């Protein structure tokens, strides 16, 4: 019964998809506002990766909202799970020697890779989200190797807070400089150089640290709590 109703609803929704999608041709240029970004994005923002230019400069407000969503998820996972009882956490068996040694060797490289990705967000594919996710997976490795160690919970929440505040502070500095919230008030610099594109690298590093700390926090909460 439940399955039949579900199937019927799915079919109705599918029919709706079909009707609309049939009218949106695939692989054809229908971009309108996007053409402005493509033509002027690199010049206006200084970032050669147009996706980064959109994510951080043109639609930076979305990104601010979206790191907030992740922040809520990290706080919320901590709030809805019961607090970890200390003895239970210590009972866990340690991982094997291979895992521990391996993660000790790999961890710095993973963090380095993550940092590279998030610093070069305006020049190459990648950026804050991807770099942050890589950093978080480095911490996932640490959790696996040393379960129940609590991996510096306070440091995580401090990084989370500071990078979030840095993001908002850069936005408010925009108001102070008269270019509006989240506007760019720094010189654009030379294209394709690491220190170019105004506030984009600053904001993307803040996003990367925040996303990394938050994802690591979500995974950590899930793994540590009973």
């Amino acid at each position, binding site marked *: 019964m439940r399955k039949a109703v579900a199937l019927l609803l799915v079919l109705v929704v599918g029919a*709706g*998809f079909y*009707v*609309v*999608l049939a*009218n*949106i041709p695939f692989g054809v240029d*229908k*971009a*309108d*506002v*996007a053409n*402005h*970004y493509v033509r002027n994005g690199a010049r*206006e923002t200084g970032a050669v990766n147009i996706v980064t230019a959109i994510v951080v*400069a*043109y*639609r*930076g*407000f*979305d990104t*601010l*909202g*979206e790191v*907030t*969503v992740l*922040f*809520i*998820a990290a*706080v*919320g*996972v*901590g*709030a*809805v*799970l*019961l*607090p970890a009882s200390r003895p239970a956490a210590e009972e866990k068996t340690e991982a094997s020697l291979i895992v521990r040694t391996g993660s000790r060797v790999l961890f710095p490289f993973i963090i380095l890779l993550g940092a590279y990705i998030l610093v070069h967000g305006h020049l190459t594919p990648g950026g804050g989200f991807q770099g942050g996710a890589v950093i978080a997976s480095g911490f996932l490795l640490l959790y696996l190797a040393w379960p129940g160690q609590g991996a510096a919970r*306070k440091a995580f*929440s*401090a990084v*989370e*807070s*500071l990078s*979030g*505040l840095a*993001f*908002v*502070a850069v*936005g*408010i500095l*925009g*108001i102070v400089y008269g*270019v*509006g*919230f*989240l*506007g*760019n008030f720094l010189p654009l610099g030379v294209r394709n150089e690491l220190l170019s594109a105004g506030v984009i690298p600053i904001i993307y590093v803040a996003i990367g640290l925040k996303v990394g700390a938050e994802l690591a926090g979500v995974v950590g909460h899930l793994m540590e709590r009973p």
Partner: protein
Amino acid sequence: MVSPSLLIAIPLASAFAAPLVALGSKKLVKWIPPLALAADLVIGLVLLPQVLDKVIVVSIGGYPPPFCINLMVGPLGLSLAILISLVGLLVSIYAMGYIKTEPTEKYHVLYLLLTTGALGIVLTGDIFNLFVFFEILCIASYALTAYEKDRPGTEAAIKYLIQGTVGSTFILVAIGFLYGLFGTLNMADIAARVPSAEPLHLFLILAFFVVGFGVEAAIFPLNAWLPDAHSSAPSSVSAILSGIAIKTGVYAIARICYTLMNAQGFLVFLSLIGVITLVVGEIAAYRQKGDIKRMLAYSSVGHIGLIVFAIGIGTSLGLFGALFQLVTHALAKCLLFLAAGYMIYRAGSKKLSDIEGLGRRMPLTAVAFTVAAFSLVGLPPFAGFMSKLSIFCAALKTDRAAYLGFAAVALAATVIEAGYFFRVIQGLYFKGGEKLQSAAGVKEAPATALIPIVVLAGLVVAIGVYPQLVTDVLDGAANELFNRAAYISDVLEAP
């Protein structure tokens, strides 16, 4: 001049700072939401005269509107933002003493971000940005519903999360389709291009939107999560969910139907959904003889139905009535949940039979509860009377048989509503005398709870006696929603 973007930046920055403050002292965190929301309230009130004169369009990022996200600070957005800050401020004061389950610092952060999400929804002028803020609101409410970590709360939260996420999916699909058809995400820009599209496609996209936002607004038949979530959450959370969160869903539906899509043909259908929701909600509330919060939750479903019905009338007067009802219901239902919260806390039970007779032990709380209940039923001289009256006037003025019929049904539903509220109030004052001897410890709520309760009760009476407090602003707001050509030109021709 203060920048309206501070309305969102201040609560966000405060929420981000809260974990740092918590590292120093956990006691201080509970002061953050009231302070941030008070700052917002002040900014909103300062901007109000200016906005009533001329709308403010703020480009975020410093590029002209179709190319970046803009805030549309018009009479509608700003009046709702003021309502959200006001209600949010009062509930946050209440929560300072009410929330005792650990980790309290996380509660306050989540609460502040929930209100931030609501503020973003009403102020933004970009459809994808609206989705992002909607997600902020939803995720914060899922987490807060499960905050007590008890059995009903957790179960209600997972139900709410599943249904809400499916709803968000529909919204995102609709946004994708809109982008595929029009190549833009700015609401004014889309609105300007809508006439070029085929009606069938627009109808389907609108249907996806209404289903998506309808989950949060709890319109029938998407309201299954609401009674559980609103009755199982802590009372301060129920208050903000019933007062603010579901209203943002209604706001989004109204904004999309009027400004974005200009869906005149869809409005009768919307009214029909509203009336069905109203009847279902009120009947379900009447049948709740056990749990007072569940009864209040179903009553919220009913009132959402009434607001949606008024939105569907499709005249400027109808929109005015809808917004008026939205404001009065937000104030009154928030008050009911706050008052009920401490009655439940003192009586130690959610059962209607156990709070009987509390009227003599907690006089102020009980009087406030009565005021709010009378306002919701629509008795003069309380605020609810004026708002219901304007909705029925608007429905009668259309002179269309369908709306006259709907209005008659809605009136009948109001009678049902009066039935169950009078039952509770009768119990509060005239029953349970013998039980009170044993419950000698039951005393009045503490000051942190009484301040918001008394202020809200005062507002409900003040608006009822002197409706001009809000009618001028709401008139402007209704006109903003009704006059989409002005909206488009305000945004796209902004300097």
